[in-house]
Each structure stands twice: as C-alpha cells, then as structure tokens.
C-alpha cells in the first residue's frame, strides 16, 4: 500500500529531525543540526534493506516517489512565499553582502569541483 511508503518517509524525517534537534541541544543550540541529512541517510538505508528483503513493493514505493515528484512544485510554492520585499528593502549593505558572497562561493564551487571531474560521470547537462 502507498501509505507504507509515505509512512516510512515521514518516520525517517521525524527521526532525523529529532536526532538533529537533540544534536543541536547537545551543542547548546536552539536549531536542528543536519536533521534532513540524517533523515536522507536513514531513508536510503531502510529502503535498501526492505527492498532486499522483498518487502517494498511497487505500491509502497509509489508512496515515496509521489513526494519526490512533488519536489519542484513545492519549491515553486516556497519561492512564492519568500520575503522578497524584505530582501530588496535591506539597502545596499544587504545587497552587496548577500550577492558578493554568492559570486565568491559560486566561483569556489568551480575551483573545488574541478579536480574530481570525470571520476563519477553521473548526470550530464540534460534535465530530467
């Protein structure tokens, strides 16, 4: 059943965020540290195990892949609920600090990712 997949997905996210929040607390912070990352690792491990055991049928998988397919629409909704006015009304300091940082970091992505190029040839320019 599709709900099995969605329930596994939801449980992984809850477990990840709970662990991330506890990790944050342990570090004296009020935020979640890496919860989504931990949840992703957990999902990969759990679904891999279940698939090998033959206990994750195509219907259960559809309960996960539906949410994966909704990713871009959700990001569009997120864009439409951003505080764009706040970003533009911050004045020059905010504009220069924010945009300069993006330019430098984008350039650094190029520098850091070059040496390993060609090693793992997954993905090309084509859009899925």
């Amino acid at each position: 059943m599709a709900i099995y997949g969605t329930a596994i997905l939801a449980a992984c996210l809850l477990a990840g965020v709970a662990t991330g929040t506890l990790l944050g607390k342990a570090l004296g912070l009020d935020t979640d540290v890496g919860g989504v990352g931990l949840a992703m690792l957990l999902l990969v491990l759990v679904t891999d195990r279940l698939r090998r055991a033959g206990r994750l049928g195509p219907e259960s998988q559809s309960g996960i892949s539906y949410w994966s397919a909704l990713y871009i629409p959700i990001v569009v909704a997120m864009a439409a609920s951003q505080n764009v006015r706040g970003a533009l009304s911050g004045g020059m300091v905010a504009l220069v600090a924010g945009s300069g940082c993006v330019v430098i970091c984008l350039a650094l992505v190029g520098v850091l990712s070059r040496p390993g190029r060609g090693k793992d040839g997954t993905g090309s320019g084509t859009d899925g």
Partner: protein
Amino acid sequence: MVDAALGVLTRYHLLTALALVGLLAGVAHPLAGRLLRGRVHWSALAIVAGLGLALCGGWRTGGKQGLADLPVFAGLALLGGPMLRDLAIVATAFGVRLEELKGGGLIGGVSLLLGLTVSFAFGGAVAYAWGYRDAASITTIGAGAATYIVGPVTGTAVGADSEVIALAVAAGLVKAILVMVATPWVARWIGLDNPRSAMIFGGLMGTNSGVMAGLAATDPRLVPYGAMTATFYTGLGCLLGPSVYFGIIRWVIG
C-alpha cells in the same frame, strides 16, 4: 458570487496553492520547452515567477511571507513551508546510492567550513566598509551573509542592534534568492553536473531554500546531494558564529 468563490479558495487554501502552482507549471513548462528550446529548465521560470508573485504579495500586504500573506494564497506557506519541503527533499534521496553520499563526506565538510568562513569574512568586510566598527554588528552582518537564520541567531547571541539584525536577515534573503535564480545559468561554468560537485555546492552555498531551488532548476537529480551538505550549514553556522567567528572578528578589530 465572487465572495463565495473567494471563501471556498480561502477555506481550502492548500488546494488553492496546489492549483496555482500547477497553473504556473502549466505556463512555464511549454514556455521553457518551445520558446526557449529547453535551454532553461521550466522550474527556473516557475521559481522566478514565484519570486515575482512573492514580491507583489509583499507590496500588497507588507508581510513577510510573500504571496502567502494574502489569505487566499495562505496554502503556499504550508505547501512550501519547512514540513512538506523537507518531506519532499528526503523523498528525493530515495534511489540514491549510499556510496555516492559517502564519497563526498570529506569534501562536503571542507566546503561547509570554507563556505561559512567566506560568508562571515566577506559579509563582515562589507559591514566594515559601510562604517560598522563594533565586532557584534560586523559578525551579525557576516552571519546574515551565511543564511537568514544564522544572521538573527548570531545577532541575538552577541547582542547586536535589532536594526543590524534586520540587515543580516535581508542579506541572507538576497543570497537565497540570488542562488535560486543564478545557479542554473552558471551551472555549466562551475562544473555543477555530478553528485560530487552538487555536495560541494550545497556546502559552500548553505542556504537551504537557495540550494534546493537552484539545483531543482539545474538538474533535479542533483537535489539530494546538495541538500545532504546544505542541511548541516545553518546548524554549524549557528554554532560557530557567536563563538569562533565572533572571537576572530573581535580579535581582528582589536
């Protein structure tokens, strides 16, 4: 008549949001395919349209949630909010190979630290250039250049003025929005086309919303890898901002 229709749209706000996003996709998809011949991913167009609508919403209401501040479109804040957004991000990891995530561990950590340091250093330098001379303000604006969450968290911890904290939030928003818009255009130049570089990208940029939207518009298959490192950025920034970076900046200012 209109009131009744608006009433229904407001009451079922999540469905209104789904329909609106579907409509945006329905316009953006053929536009990207036919007019732009696939040079731009349709989600890039839809995201820019969403940002434009958010600006209109902000002007209309003066609120902080873009178009979602209009009651009819309140569902956008739920659909695009942290809960469902994180659920969808985690779902994208379904089918990812564990080896690929493991392989990027070290470089991911390096890019996280480098990304945070560059943000604090550059944001702090801009603050200094604009005449801020106290370590608390400089650190806070530097933290804002990291993300719009690290900014206020750090600012509150080091006791910065609320006006400076507002600036830090604005700097973080500028960064997030620019990453969303710019990433698909520069992806080819910076080699952003494989899992490893996506993990580096996530660590260097850090801003969750920016990274996720930027990668979605570049190549949706890269999303889980970028999200994997970016998810540690804000937490690490909140940890190092008020402690390590504040200490260094205070020492540099003298």
